[in-house]
């Protein structure tokens, strides 16, 4: 293939789309295609198409977990991007539960975190950071030096060697260091790819819309209050 895949994950409102815009500005719109996965509503694709004139797609996951949905469609999306001659596919996740990670072996994994999200935030989204290549810390202009360093320390606790890029993504400060990393990505070998990490236990009866509370009503991954761990009740 000729497509380089960049997976952009991170919690809602961290500034993922602002980072995407800076990447497009730096790469040049002619080379980029964009895919947004979200649950019920997203406008990023329309916004980016209007601003940069790039080809975009979006997928709503509805009842399904959005990262699950992303994993399902990413192979088709790579074929689509290749077909329209894009050199880069920017794939932006919905960023909700922070447990799943959309990074694949063939992608550059970016975890976008907001510097104003609190000291414990990196620990709460540990898998999403631990499996990423770069932690992009946004809104850096809103915090003081000591806070920045303490926030970095939180990221380092999760991933001691991760590359950290601090940016005011609206202006694009510090993005030059992210672009240095992006320049080195190699195209995906084929549309076949595998995830870097093991996702949390699969789709259950709640994911597909069953509303009853209590483990007694469900199959799949269940858990009574007193149990030390999750159980699987199959059928």
């Amino acid at each position, binding site marked *: 293939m000729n497509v380089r895949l960049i997976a952009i994950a991170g919690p809602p409102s961290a500034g993922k789309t602002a980072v995407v815009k800076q990447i497009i500005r730096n790469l040049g719109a002619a080379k980029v295609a964009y895919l947004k996965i979200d649950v019920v509503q997203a406008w990023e694709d329309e916004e980016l198409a209007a601003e940069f004139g790039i080809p975009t797609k979006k997928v709503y996951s509805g009842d399904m977990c959005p990262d699950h949905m992303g994993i399902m469609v990413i192979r088709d999306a790579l074929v689509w991007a290749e077909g329209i001659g894009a050199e880069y596919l920017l794939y932006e996740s919905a960023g909700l539960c922070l447990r799943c990670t959309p990074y694949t072996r063939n992608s550059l994994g970016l975890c976008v975190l907001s510097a104003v999200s609190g000291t414990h935030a990196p620990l709460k989204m540990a898998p999403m950071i631990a499996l990423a290549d770069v932690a992009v810390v946004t809104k850096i202009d809103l915090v003081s*030096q000591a806070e920045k360093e*303490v926030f970095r320390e939180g990221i380092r606790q999760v991933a001691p060697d991760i590359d950290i890029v601090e940016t005011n993504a609206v202006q694009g400060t510090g993005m030059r260091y992210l672009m240095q990393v992006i320049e080195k990505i190699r195209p995906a070998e084929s549309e076949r790819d595998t995830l870097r990490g093991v996702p949390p236990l699969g789709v259950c009866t709640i994911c597909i819309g069953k509303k009853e509370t209590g483990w007694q009503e469900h199959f799949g991954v269940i858990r009574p209050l007193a149990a030390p761990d999750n159980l699987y009740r199959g059928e």
Partner: protein
Amino acid sequence: MPDSSPIVTLTILPGTTREGKPENFTEITIRPGDTISIVGPTGSGKTALINDIEVFAWGDTITRRKILVNGVPPPEDLVRDPAKKPIAMITQNTKCLADLTVQEFLAMHLRSRKMKDDSVITSAVDLANQFTGEKIVSSMRMSSLSGGQTRSLFIADAVLISDTPIILLDEVENAGIFKDRVIDILREKKKAIIFVTHDPYVALLTKKRIVMKCGAVENILTPKDEETEALARIAHMDADLMKLRERIRSGEILATLEVA
């Protein structure tokens, strides 16, 4: 480099005004012990200027300025590794985000800098208490500190933990901290201090004034003797205002005014 030598010069190279014209200076060099204020109306680009310094802008901010360190483009690790960065900025927004106590926050900062000596925590809290009238105790939560307390703590942190040669302060006067004491201590420690300020007292206490207009540097003033008298009078007025502020804070009605 800051680690081996305390002498770091920072040079600001001009960018462009909002209309895209070149800025009105050739370069501004900042040296240890310098005191500089940045003045100008709201929206004139004061905060953008210190932000450029803080992030070591390289034509990648809206102002298109560039920053040199010791006369050359700064090496990447100096820009990206906070432990090597010679600058600490204390922002205007001090809604501190840390869900930690003062003690835990400072301990985490020490750990991030691989510093072993815990006694710095006590020294930092003690120093911060010299800058503010509202006492900071290390068991307080960071999120419960007032703007003045947070700023005082961050200044003390910048002096003792970050220990950077250059400190940037964005509108320190808004927090009601003892600004002359801050300036005295930073001068004593040979720090370069740059204030974004609307406060005449802070502006006159500094040796150099950068005047901003329309997003750009309009002028650089280095007043000498001609402001000595003004400074003495403003110091007086400021001291009077401080007294009044304290009286109002403590709930008095100002039936008498012992103003000189």
